[in-house]
């Protein structure tokens, strides 16, 4: 259980920090947080670049971190997912981001020239991939004005350390922990890489909170998914929260996706993942609270304020993958502090973020039982009555898709042989359709909310997987799988040591290697949260580079995608994320592609934008993703309008 803290801390920190945080919030239009704001709206009020001139965008500068040269073959284990933040003038006004190896780099926002860098020199042992989605900034009012580490950056590393460094020079804050860092749970007694970090910590009102990334599929009982909070000044531990409430027969339910915080109301929102092992729940009977949930904690004490579990007794690896989106619900004269939660299943749940009361009714969807002895799958699963699911989870033999009658027939035959009762069909010893699979639906890219309009733009994966539980007695257990999801065309054998089964997962595709479900295989969906409807959707990505030979023209059938997009007041939505090296701008009103640029490698990261010295820049980290197996890099691209075309 979380340790309780007195209200004095809460009151004191709020008073001390309110002024500086407010000042930071007034600095516009910047990008001070990973998700644009602390509620992950992925939105900028910048509008210099708009529908009318976006086609004129050009490369303003390119920065290379040097990782490719420095780390060589280790780059194959990376995915470059970082979204930079722009520091306020008082903090040096640098553009700051992290590389997969947790190097933190500050750049000149106009030129992309490096100002400083910080290398935590992480322990790179283990097989887990390297990634860093971002760093967090706060002005620490308890530090001397103008002094070192008055303005701080926080970053959680692959090797489980939380660092505080000065935002202006990148030097560790010696008053934080030991030499600027604190050790996080997960290093002691575990194999290197068993517990790591991917998302940025959150910091608000004197509290810095970090989650973790845990291998939750390889063993029955995996490391705890403990969320830890520290004093942002000293690094002293404040509280811990175990999402599984100490239940011993399981592990994880960790928070690997970005968290959100409502600083004004002192609420922290955790997107929790599945309990271990992902696909077998006999030894963890019951719903498994607070796994697969969005959990609202008191920022200062870690006490649970409310929660919503979107998958009960998960058997599908349906982690809560995306940052909870905090926004103002404005409907029928009501103004309600709201939270929208995207899920891998392709649902959008909307709540009053102060109370947890759903703003769209949540119904109980009856779901099929499990055939595995002793497995008591939940009888129902939650489903919002609106908006609609972002993908159609039914795939019948008659829906099989192929380029020719032969591969289509192959897919139809495969589908006819699958166990397939739609979403939440438990896997069994028969080959079972997993649609959506563990890739989603939505994933960690989250969604972008178009200002206060209630229009949410979400990039969605739309590829069917299959899964099959394999009794371990029938085969020698393979070497432990290192992937979270199967790569394209790859069947992934995952151990679940301590259970009677392994699981084999792969994408459902024909002998030609083409997905069996109809395209688009990745799409962009505009959801009207207030109406509870889908306004429009369009394919996201071209498959022209996914075949054995690159086609000379784009084939917009959508691709699997990782990373998110951002919306701007200029009526634009910017996104990379696809497996075609493209960085695109869409018209938010209708989904039309207005501009695109070919990057050297895929940009599996969420972009950001800012206006600096009168010029709006759009920046995206392009370094590929190890799962895509399409090459890596260490690029940071900035785009802007030609100087002559920029409005003051």
């Amino acid at each position: 259980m979380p340790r309780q803290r007195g209200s004095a801390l809460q009151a004191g920190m709020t008073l001390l920090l309110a002024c500086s945080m407010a000042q930071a919030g007034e600095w516009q239009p910047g990008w001070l947080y990973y998700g644009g704001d602390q509620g992950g709206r992925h939105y900028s009020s910048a509008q210099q670049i708009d529908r009318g001139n976006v086609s004129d965008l050009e490369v303003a500068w390119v920065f290379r971190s040097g990782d490719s040269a420095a780390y060589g073959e280790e780059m194959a284990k990376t995915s470059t997912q970082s979204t930079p933040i722009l520091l306020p003038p008082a903090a040096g006004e640098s553009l700051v981001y992290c590389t997969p190896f947790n190097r933190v780099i500050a750049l000149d926002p106009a030129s992309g020239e490096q100002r400083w860098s910080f290398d935590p020199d992480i322990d790179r042992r283990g097989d887990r991939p390297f990634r860093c989605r971002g760093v967090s900034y706060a002005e620490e009012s308890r530090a001397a004005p103008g002094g070192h580490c008055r303005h701080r950056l926080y970053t959680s590393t692959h090797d489980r350390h939380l660092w505080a460094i000065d935002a202006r020079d990148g030097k560790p804050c010696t008053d934080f922990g030991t030499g600027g860092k604190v050790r996080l749970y997960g290093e002691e007694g575990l194999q290197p890489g068993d517990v790591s970090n991917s998302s940025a910590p959150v910091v608000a009102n004197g509290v810095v909170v970090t989650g973790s990334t845990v291998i939750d599929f390889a063993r029955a009982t995996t490391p705890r998914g403990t969320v830890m909070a520290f004093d942002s000044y000293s690094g002293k531990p404040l509280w811990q929260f175990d999402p599984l409430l100490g239940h011993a027969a399981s592990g994880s339910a960790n928070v690997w996706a970005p968290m959100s915080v409502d600083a004004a109301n002192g609420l922290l929102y955790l997107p929790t993942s599945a309990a271990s092992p992902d696909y077998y729940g006999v030894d963890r009977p019951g719903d498994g609270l607070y796994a697969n949930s969005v959990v609202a904690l008191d920022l200062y004490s870690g006490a649970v304020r409310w929660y919503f579990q979107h998958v009960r007794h998960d058997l599908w690896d349906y982690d809560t993958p995306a940052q909870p989106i905090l926004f103002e619900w404005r409907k029928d004269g009501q103004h309600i502090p709201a939270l929208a939660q995207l899920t891998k299943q392709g649902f959008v749940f909307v709540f009053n973020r102060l109370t947890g009361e759903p703003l769209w009714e949540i119904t109980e969807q009856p779901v099929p039982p499990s055939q595995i002895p002793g497995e008591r799958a939940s009888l129902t699963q939650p489903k919002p009555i609106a908006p609609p699911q972002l993908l159609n989870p039914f795939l019948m033999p008659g829906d099989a898709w192929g380029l020719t009658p032969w591969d289509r027939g192959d897919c139809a035959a495969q589908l006819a042989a699958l166990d397939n009762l739609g979403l939440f069909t438990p896997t069994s010893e028969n080959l079972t359709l997993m649609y959506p699979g563990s890739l989603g639906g939505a994933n960690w890219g989250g969604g972008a909310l178009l200002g206060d309009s209630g229009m949410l733009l979400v990039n969605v994966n739309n590829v069917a997987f299959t899964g099959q539980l394999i009794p371990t007695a029938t085969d020698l257990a393979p070497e432990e799988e290192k992937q979270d999801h199967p790569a394209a065309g790859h069947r992934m054998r995952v151990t679940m040591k301590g259970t009677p089964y392994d699981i084999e997962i792969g994408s459902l595709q024909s002998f030609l290697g083409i997905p069996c479900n109809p395209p688009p295989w990745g799409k962009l969906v505009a959801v009207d949260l207030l109406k509870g409807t889908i306004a429009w959707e369009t394919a996201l990505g071209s498959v022209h580079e996914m075949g054995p030979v690159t086609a000379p023209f784009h084939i917009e059938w959508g691709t699997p995608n990782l990373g998110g997009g951002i919306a701007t007041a200029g009526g634009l939505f910017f996104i990379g994320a696809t497996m075609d090296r493209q960085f695109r701008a869409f018209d938010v009103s209708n989904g039309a592609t207005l501009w695109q640029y070919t990057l050297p490698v895929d940009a599996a990261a969420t972009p950001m934008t800012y206006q600096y010295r009168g010029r709006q820049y759009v920046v995206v980290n392009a370094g590929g993703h190890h799962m895509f197996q399409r090459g890596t890099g260490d690029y940071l691209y900035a785009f802007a309008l030609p100087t002559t075309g920029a409005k003051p």
Partner: protein
Amino acid sequence: MTIKPPAGIIRAFFPGVPTMRMHTAAVALALLAPLAQAGTLTVKNPQGQPLSPVMVTRTLVQQPEADLSDDGYAPDGVTNTSAAVLTRFTNAAGEVSFADASEPVRYRLRAQGYVDAYVDAAQGEVVLQPMTAEQEIASYPSNVWLSQLDFGGDQALKETFQLNCAFCHQQASPFMRSERTEEQWVSIIERMNTYGARLPTDDHQKVASLLREEYRDLREHPEQVPKPRPWDAYLANYELTEWPIGDGFSQMHDFLVHPNGFIYIGDNLFDRIYQLDPETGEYTVYKVPHDEDMGLGGIMGNRFKVFPKMYNYMGVHSFAYSKKDGNIFITPSMQQALLEFDIKTKQFITHEMPEGYYPHTIRVDDQDRVWFTLALSSQVAMFDRTSKTFTVYDLPARGVKEWFILKSLPVLFSIDPENRPNPSPDREGTGLPMPYGIDITPDGKVWVARLYANDLAMIDPETEEVTMIDFPYKGPRRLRADADGNLWIVAFQDSLLVKYDPAKKAFSSWELPVINEVPYALNVDRERGVVWVNGNQSDTILAFDIAAESWEVFPMPRQRFFTRDIEISEEDGAVYTTNSHFPTWQSEGGVPTLLRITPLEN
């Protein structure tokens, strides 16, 4: 417990109760609960007023051990025990009593407009919390929501929708009401048609569009949804007993209350019959054999390839017993055959049939002749047990096209099911008049209802003459004869109970006591003059007193309680039905049950 004298219909339904069987059941209950002491639970609202009726359902916390080693089911000949689930209702004082259980139990308290509560003992006082307005509207049964769908004023389209989409599922349930795109609705409709629905292709897009539009309108204006019928005070005089059998993949379709005291229930999807002793809950499973070279789905082919579990080589459908020797006759829908179950040897006998497709509902007449409908080939078959021969009666086609389709069936069925063409359905069900329900009037005449053709057929076994009679309503599904020779028929799409008086050649109809019901079947308690009707969209069973022309309504203890058959115990008048929602996992609790309605002892 203080039981008030059962009022009204209880006297009509159950004269002379308690019967010997009820005494026996009470004794058995006492034996099962040797430490039993009557406890009383009082249910109140937050203002301290007694709540009545509150449905109180008692379930064993730990289910009995069972041998389910045959792919999750009991192997052939194995006996397991089903722990009975009891439901009673509070009286005007808000009180309800149960004998103490010998094992840990849990009570669920459910009342209209209140949030469910759970307690571990039926003692003391429980306060139910009222639902919010939003929760209450959301909790309404499907029928009241469905009543507000008008399909843009196209009543014919709504009837087509109900005919094809409401014979397995409750429409307008919360699950159905959720926002979907038109494409998602079309996908669902197309999938359902592969499973056996016959929504005309031309209507797919229209129905998808209207469902999206009108469900959205209902969500935005739920105030237009009428309140469901309130539960009645007389419910305190009844007990509902359920026996869960099978699992979430099963479908307990039709069943039989046999004079030997057992109930025989057919699992339509797993080729098993369950012989259940209602006094003990013990059931023995008998697995219907099939030819080794037979494929899943029999001659019909397997429509459910994507289902994880299926074992329907024969397709156990409808039951009737011989008054001569008690043997049970069963229609195997997936075969050209008739099944006979010898109740002494517990062996199945398969009587191969020379023609006809989809053996459906079955009855045995006083001459020990076995009559059943052949739903797909629009025929009625008679099996003469003496000569062991079948006589097949063709029912007339409605036109040349239908005649041609019906005559083409043998050719179509000679084609491998994988490659068999499937005629595109239209609103009239051309090619599929579908003789469905069947019964025999006291004068020996055989009566059949044709669901898609909206007509009745009468076969005179003496003359072998077939007479067709137009049915002036829509959707004659199942029918039963009363003691006076009248036919009672449910009009599925018209939500009516219909009587046909053959002597006067006159139809009469009665509105059902719940709105927008799509009644599937009925049965007549000839001795007590009561017609019992399935209420599938409203989670109810409906009882119509023929003499008084009045209704009583019995709420079912599970949501999405979809019933297709009703049987009445000749011995004591107890009323039975099965929860055969398809798929079963969509029913509350996710398991099929046999349910009995009995009056409580005075």
